[in-house]
């Protein structure tokens, strides 16, 4: 199964080659650099997440949800679209909706993660025996 996944990943990495090949010239296009960052980030993610202790898997889910709301960046750009462009009102509205949703996740995600993490305490003192 792991082998199949690795093969699929390797194949998937070659798919964008067709798209990139179309952009000509001797310089490396920014899309290729972005793809490189993506690949390395996947590896980093793999090693970092395996180091997360199972006791904290639930906060892991809530914090990854919070950081995936960095899509707010796209929403902010959309809301900031200048009204001179055509269809920009549509873009602004979609941007506003996305911004609101992402904000719920950002505040909700980080705060609920913090709330959970502050619940984890160690034994504070050795247990006294009775009698």
């Amino acid at each position: 199964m792991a082998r199949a996944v690795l093969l699929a990943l390797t194949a998937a990495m070659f798919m964008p080659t067709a798209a990139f090949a179309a952009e000509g010239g001797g310089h490396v296009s920014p899309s290729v650099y972005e793809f490189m960052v993506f690949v390395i980030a996947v590896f980093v993610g793999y090693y970092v997440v395996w180091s997360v202790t199972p006791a904290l898997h639930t906060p892991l889910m809530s914090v990854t949800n919070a950081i995936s709301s960095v899509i707010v960046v796209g929403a902010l750009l959309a809301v900031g679209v200048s009204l001179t462009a055509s269809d920009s009102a549509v873009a602004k509205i979609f941007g506003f909706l996305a911004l609101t949703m992402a904000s719920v996740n950002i505040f909700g995600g980080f705060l609920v993660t913090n709330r959970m993490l502050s619940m984890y305490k160690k034994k504070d003192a050795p247990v006294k025996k009775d009698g």
Partner: protein
Amino acid sequence: MSANVAALFYLAAGVLFILALRGLSSPATSRRGNLFGMVGMTIAILTTLGLAAPTATSWILILLGLGIGGFIGAKTAREIPMTMMPELIAAFHSLVGLAAVFVAASALYAPSAFGILADPANPALGIKGGSLFEMALGVAIGAITFTGSVIAFAKLSGRMSGKPILLPMRHAINAALGLLLVFVIYSFIQSAGSAWLFWLIVFLSLLIGVLIIIPIGGADMPVVISMLNSYSGWAAAGIGFTLGNIALIITGALVGSSGAILSYIMCKGMNRQFLSVIAGGFGGETAGAAAGGGEQKPVKLGSAEDAAYVLKNAAKVIIVPGYGMAVAQAQHALREMADALKKAGVEVKYAIHPVAGRMPGHMNVLLAEANVPYDEVFELEDINSEFSQADAVYVIGANDVVNPAAEEDKTSPIYGMPVLQVWKAGTVFFNKRSLASGYAGIDNPVFYRDNTVMVLGDAKKMTEEIVKALAH
């Protein structure tokens, strides 16, 4: 702000997010890690505001959006009970998916502002192919994440039955829809950005999201939520490529990997193949011959007093919590029971199975909420060898995760799944509401062993009665 400076700030945000995840390697470093995450997000938002330089009207919209969303998010985070964590996570994922769809839509309708036109001097030529490909991926995965998470939310919150909903020929339907989606995406790219093809992609993806989650049974939800967690990351990455935004690309990769790893761990914990879980149809139905009807084999029934007596006089007790404890909200009573035992000089440990509950780490967070010290809580690999040294075990709301059939019975549907070997202890006190079968629909041989005493009843009530009995 120049594009180069902005890109470096986005990189800083990405690095802080990596550190946030790294902080979760132990509870001691975790809160600081979360703080790093918050700082990273703040940097990303401020950088974007610096780049976009919004007009006054835009500022109003931005502050309004942040304010409304922030208020709802903060209020929810403050008030939600920990037992509702699985459905909350599912609901949050759905918001990320939908946000991805809306951001992609904005990029479609205002491509010049996002810098994705094929030829900025000639907007009629439409959007460039590479951007359309990235946008299509982002929006398709986002839409699937949205509806998939909504269904997961409905199942987890009880608004929808946990039983798998199996449409006739569902694999053929899903495959056909998948192929259709690929074709529409291809056409979308060829069309240089046709709006109606975009919305067709959205519609098909929304539908696929529903269809792939409804056949999955309620207790396979840990895998489903992890998978949707992963998808929300890939959707963000897709949008990140479309916008050429490094923070989104790094974050998408991190979240995507995280969800994938959690899905893998959950599947290993159930000893089921990921594809078989996704194909659905497992569990939740009334079971086969093994459970329910027919002769009742003899079981030893006990009372809270019986349990209290044995537990009090044990040197070492291991507690095994399961989903039943979460449903009954018995974690606080459980901790009181453990405190009473510790006062009486008993060593108390908790054993957590990776798929106990409805979400990875579910039991740990409920125990933490009940003030159980995390150094008394152990994962399966670390504690399984200690059951033979335990005088007594208290199983509360768990069933399939302590079923020896997984080790002994090759014909069992759970054969091969790692389980907690509770039967090796001196006495096992098994709390369940009744003798009915668990999620997998199979009988548990532990009920009938000589060293097992069934203490039937609601998990919270039974535990509270044991606490009372311990006080005598």
